[in-house]
């Protein structure tokens, strides 16, 4: 493409099909304790 470059390969609809195992870290346990920072957690799969 000449005008657009895609930065990532994330596919949320796909994660909806295979996700939900719940093994990932609880966000408030990693560092924050006062603000909800879910989007930066890593997937355990």
């Amino acid at each position, binding site marked *: 493409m000449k005008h657009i470059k895609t930065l990532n390969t*994330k596919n*949320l609809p796909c994660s909806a099909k295979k996700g939900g195992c719940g093994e990932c870290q609880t966000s*408030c346990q990693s560092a924050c*304790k*006062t603000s909800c920072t*879910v989007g930066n957690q890593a997937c355990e799969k």
Partner: protein
Amino acid sequence: MIHKFKFENSNIVMDIHSGSIHLLDDVAYTLVEEAETLSKEELMLKYAGQFEKEQIEEAYEELMSLKEQQMLYTPDLYEEFVPAFLEREPVVKALCLHVAHDCNLACQYCFAGEGEYHGERGMMSFEVGKNAIDFIIQNSKHRKNIEIDFFGGEPLMNFEVVKQIVEYARSREAESGKTFRFTMTTNGVLLNDEIIDYLNANMYNVVLSLDGRPEVNDRMRPTCNGKGSYEVILPKFKKLVEKRQGKQYYVRGTFTRHNLDFAEDVKHIHEAGFDEVSVEPVVAPTTMNYALQQEDVSQLCKEYETLAKHMVKLTKQGKGFNFFHFMIDLEGGPCVHKRLAGCGSGTEYLAVTPDGDLYPCHQFVGLPEFKMGDVKQGITNLEKRAEFEKCNVYSKEMCKSCWAKFQCSGGCAANSYNFHGTINSVYEIGCALQKKRIECAVGIKAELLESE
């Protein structure tokens, strides 16, 4: 839904419902909103004086190609997941153990008072800790990874019990099929060589509290007799991190209205030798003189941008570091289920008081209406648990239409409660800062990609 913004030299478009992020040239960036509804001919007519006809045509075709691949203008597919998601079997996978409701610092902004959380000072007994471990093994169902955070007050004031709880949990791992990951959040005052070695051997993560520059730290984090804590703590944290051999840690600070230039504190912590930094906005009633106010938001947003640009510069020089709130995983990250559910407070995540009472999270501890049960009897306040279970991105009107909804997942329930008296609202200053942090996190990635 799309969200577009500029960061340094990058024109960025986020497609919210697919999670795709695109960098656009000026032509495509100008057209991207209207291309969803206007035809190519209408766009060519409208922008004839601004861009070449051929450029408009090409950009339009590229935008439509992304749409076909479900990477742009993707419709919201997720609200229909919510009923199934509400049916999930309750599972507890993380506990915040308040092993000490007492503290050896007197931090001005502490939501726990000086460790006592609206109640009496007290220490958790091993018996209560053991019951908490039994409770989570029983209630975590098929989940393998269990998280235990030793919290306070100051957890090192009850270090012997921490060791006993760790030993007990480890002794139950094999037969229960669980893996315990321990974290400790400490102010560092009591660290010595023996404790440092123990924490590095046994804690999956340590969160080390330090606010930044000495004057900033000491103003808000004095000792109980009014002296500064910076000089006492810094050498201990340095020693702990040097000996940690790459295991997870964060030096974690809080910024307040007294240091709206908090990027200087992040830089200070990094320059003091720490590569894993988290500095977060204070959450406090607006009547406190250190509380952040609505009118501070624009300055704070500029400060995040200053920090992001500084980090891009350092990364390009090979001297980058990690800032917790700018972490973003563009390839993976949490699945949609996690993004819908949020932090899990009151459901997957609970706090345990020294007496063994259960609360939805550490920030609700001591508020009687939020007591959910105790570690011996389990959850008895099913109504309260149901209230937290139902809380998700789509249960909050203001979140449904927000472009940041899959990053903050509806925000912090305690913040919402503290400012609006309900867990189903949002804390507006927190939202504004969260959005800016997401833009900065994506902006950093974009700038680094462009410079490759």
